[in-house]
């Protein structure tokens, strides 16, 4: 099961890439855990996760081909 992950804003600065694929991640919480273990700088940050462009809660299930986006606090306008 593959998902596509997108990173934006400050998070895109911390991670080595802005877009990549991951295998075997079945919930948003699991994604958060794996990323924070690998990139400890993420731990101190507030960010939301969107699944297929909808804000998800922390244990939303992911499906094959889900597009998952890491969204730091917005600053538009």
């Amino acid at each position, binding site marked *: 099961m593959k998902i596509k992950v*997108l990173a*934006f*804003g*400050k998070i895109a*600065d911390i991670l080595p890439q802005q877009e990549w694929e991951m295998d075997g991640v079945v919930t948003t919480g699991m994604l958060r855990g794996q990323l924070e273990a690998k990139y400890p700088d993420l731990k101190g940050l507030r960010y939301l996760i*969107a699944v297929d*462009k909808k804000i998800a809660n922390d244990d939303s299930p992911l499906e094959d081909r889900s597009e998952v*986006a890491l*969204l*730091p*606090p*917005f*600053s*538009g*306008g």
Partner: protein
Amino acid sequence: MEKQTVNTEEKPSHRRKKVFVEGPISPAFVGDSIAKHSTMMNIGAHSIFLGQVRKDVIEGQEVVAIEYSAYTEMAEEKFHEIREDTFAKYPLTCMHIYHSLGKVDAGEICLFVFTSAIHRREAIDACNEVVERIKQEVPVWGKEIFDNDQYVWKENK
């Protein structure tokens, strides 16, 4: 600047409208948008919000520009949702939203929200609500750039 043309076919519709423009929104574009409503005789009030990039001083450094980026597809969905919700809530004649992407220098316009109605109250209330919702809900990020090319990520309050 061709991206800044106003769509003159005005209906509270379900069409997706283009919101993002590359770079700053020019005062002339705002003026033209106002002028295009002069044929709509049922409008009695316009409310306009213009967001301008501020030359903030952050830890002794002056902000010279903000560079905007977005999760474009989700942002466009959100703008559409805000637009539809606002038309459902207020009796508006029309509404336009434009937001910059890319670099906007201090002193330039980065957000233009324009609501029109028969009477002022609904135009003003709708405009305020749209602006607040954009700040809270739309996935757009601004990088505040200093004159030495360093930057910090802005956060909406």
